[in-house]
C-alpha cells in the first residue's frame, strides 16, 4: 500500500515537469518576439531591448527556464500583460467562482446520474430505462455551450424565471470573505443575496453538469447490472432481505466503486468544461479569464492559468487514484 502511494506520487513529478516545460515553451513557440507582442509593432528598438532584458529574454533558454521555475516556486507567476496585476491575485479572485459552479454542477450530476442509473438497472428494458439511456447518449453528444444558450432562452428570456448571466444581481453587494457567494451571503445572514446567487448558479450548473450526469448514469447502470448478477446478491435475497435492502445495502455499495472513480475524474474535466460554460453565461471564473487572455494574447495569464488548471487536474486525478486504492482491497493489499 505504502509503496503504491509512493510510486504514484513519484510518477507525478515527471508529469508536472513536462507541463511546466510545455507552458514555459509557449512564449518561445509563438511566432514573433514576445517583447514586441507586448509593446506593439511601433515600439522603438531601445524599449524592446530594455523589455527583453527585463523579461530575461536575452539569457540562454535553460537559464530562463530556471528563473521561471524558481519564481513559480516562490509563488510569483508574473504580472498580467494587460492589467499589470500579479497573475496569482487575479487567479485567486476568480477561482472560487469556478469552484462554486463546478461543485454545484457535480452535485446535480451525481445525484441525478446515480439515481437514473439505479432505476434504469432495476427496471431494465422499461420505458424509463430506454428514455434515460437515450437521454444519457444525447447528453454526451450535446455541445455544452449550445445547451447553455437553450437554457438561457427558455428560462431567462421566455419564462423570465432565472437570470441570463453573471454571478449576482447589481443590487447586491456581498463582502468577499471566502469568495464563495453562497457561503459569504449566509455568513452575513443576507438571505436575499443567497437566493439571488443561487438563482444565478442554477442554469450554468445544469449546463455544465449535463455531460457528467450522462456519463455517471450510464456507468451506474452497467455497474449495477453487473453487481446484481453476483452470488452475494442471491445470498442476500435467499436469507430474506427486502428488495430495498438488497439494492441499497448489498448492491449499491459495490456498484458505486467504479462510479466513484469516474466522479473524481469528471471533477477534473469539469474545470475544462467550465471554459465554455463560463463564456456562455459570462460567469466571472478562471475559464472566462483564460479565454479573455487568449483574445488579448496575454501570455503570462495564459501560461499561469494553464499551469494552475493542469496542476489542479493532476492533483485531483492523484487523489482519486489514492482514494481508490484505499477503498479497493485488490490494490490496497497488492
Amino acid at each position, binding site marked *: 500500500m505504502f509503496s503504491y502511494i509512493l510510486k504514484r506520487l513519484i510518477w507525478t513529478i515527471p508529469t508536472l515537469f513536462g507541463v511546466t516545460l510545455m507552458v514555459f515553451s509557449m512564449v518561445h513557440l509563438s511566432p514573433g518576439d514576445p517583447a514586441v507582442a507586448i509593446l506593439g509593432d511601433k515600439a522603438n528598438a531601445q524599449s524592446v531591448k530594455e523589455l527583453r532584458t527585463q523579461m530575461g529574454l536575452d539569457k540562454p533558454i535553460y537559464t530562463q527556464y530556471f528563473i521561471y521555475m524558481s519564481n513559480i516556486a516562490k509563488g510569483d507567476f508574473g504580472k498580467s500583460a494587460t492589467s499589470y496585476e500579479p497573475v496569482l491575485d487575479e487567479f485567486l479572485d476568480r477561482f472560487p467562482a469556478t469552484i462554486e459552479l463546478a461543485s454545484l454542477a457535480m452535485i446535480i450530476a451525481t445525484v441525478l446520474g446515480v439515481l437514473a442509473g439505479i432505476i434504469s438497472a432495476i427496471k431494465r428494458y422499461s420505458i424509463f430505462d430506454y428514455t434515460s439511456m437515450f437521454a444519457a447518449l444525447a447528453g454526451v453528444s450535446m*455541445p455544452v455551450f449550445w445547451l447553455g444558450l437553450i437554457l438561457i432562452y427558455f428560462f431567462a428570456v421566455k419564462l423570465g424565471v432565472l437570470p441570463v448571466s453573471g454571478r449576482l444581481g447589481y443590487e447586491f453587494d456581498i463582502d468577499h470573505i471566502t469568495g464563495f457567494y453562497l457561503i459569504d451571503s449566509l455568513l452575513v445572514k443576507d438571505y436575499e443575496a443567497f437566493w439571488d446567487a443561487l438563482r444565478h448558479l442554477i442554469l450554468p450548473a445544469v449546463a455544465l453538469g449535463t455531460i457528467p450526469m450522462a456519463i455517471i448514469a450510464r456507468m451506474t447502470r452497467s455497474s449495477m447490472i453487473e453487481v446484481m448478477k453476483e452470488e452475494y446478491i442471491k445470498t442476500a435475497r435467499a436469507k430474506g432481505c427486502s428488495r430495498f435492502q438488497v439494492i441499497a445495502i448489498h448492491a449499491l455499495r459495490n456498484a458505486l466503486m467504479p462510479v466513484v472513480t469516474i466522479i473524481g475524474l469528471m471533477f477534473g474535466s469539469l474545470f475544462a468544461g467550465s471554459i465554455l460554460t463560463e463564456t456562455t453565461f459570462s460567469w466571472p471564473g478562471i475559464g472566462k479569464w483564460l479565454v479573455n487572455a487568449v483574445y488579448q494574447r496575454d501570455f503570462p495569464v495564459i501560461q499561469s492559468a494553464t499551469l494552475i488548471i493542469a496542476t489542479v487536474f493532476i492533483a485531483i486525478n492523484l487523489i482519486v487514484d489514492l482514494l481508490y486504492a484505499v477503498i479497493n482491497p485488490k490494490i490496497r493489499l497488492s
Partner: protein
Amino acid sequence: MRDFIKQYKKNKSAVVGFFIVLILLILALFAPFIASHLPADQNLADRLIPPMWEEGGVTTHILGTDDFGRDLFSRIIYGARISLMVGAISVGMSLTFGLVMGLVAAYFGGKVDLFVMRIVDIMLSIPAILLAIVIVSILGPSLVNAMIAIGIVGIPTYARVVRASVLAEREKEYVIASRINGSSNMRLMFKVILPNAATPIIVQSTMGFASAVLEAAGLSFLGLGAQPPTPEWGAMLSDSLQFITTAPWMIFYPGLAIFFTVLGFNLMGDGLMDVLDPKLKDK
C-alpha cells in the same frame, strides 16, 4: 463482411447513427444543389427573418436569416462540409501520429515504451479543450490552426488504444511464426500485427470524429476557430448570442446540426463496438 452487415443491421441505434452520417455526407457533397443560397450571400433588407412556419417567415428562407440577411438553412448545409472536413483532417492527424507512437511503444517495449507513454501521460494530464486553446493561442486563431490543435490533442488517446491492442497481439503465435520466417520489424508492425489489432482503432476513430467536431465547434464558439464569414456551426452560435431575445432561431438550428452530427458518430461508434468486439463494451 456479410456477417458484419447482418450484425450491424440488428443494432437499431447503430443503424440510426449510420443514416445520420449518410445524410450528412449527402448534404456536404451536394451542398450547392441543396442549399437555396450561397452561404456568404448577404442581403441587409432581409435581415433577421424568422423560419418560414413562424409569423413573418418567408418560403425563400426556410430556417430564416441571420443579422446579415444570410440564409440560415444554406449556411447550415455548407457548415456540414466544414464539420466533416475538420473531423476527417483532425482524426487523420491524431490517428497517424497516435498509430506510429502506440505501435512503436508496444512493439519495442522497454525504455521506448516508457518514454513514449510518459509523453502520452503528460499530454493526457491536461484537459483536451485547454490544451487545444493553448495550441491555438500559440498559432493564432483560425480554422486550420483549430484543426491542428484538435489533431494534436487527440494523439495520446489513439496512442493508448493502439498500444493496448498491439500489446495483446504481439506475443500471439502467428506473429512469432512470421518473425521466425524472417519478417522485418516494419513488416511485422504494419502488415502482420496492425490489421489484427484494428478493431479498437476503428471504434476509437469513429468516436474521435464526434469529439473532434464538438471540440472544433467549441473553439469556434470561443472565437478561436473558424472566423467570420465561414459558415461553421460553432462560430454561427457565437454570433447568435446577442440575438437571443430577437432571433432565437439563430441559436436553435446550428446547435441542432452539431448535436445530430456528434450523436450520429457516437451511435455509429457504439454500434461498431457492439458488432466488431462485444468485449470492449462497458470497459
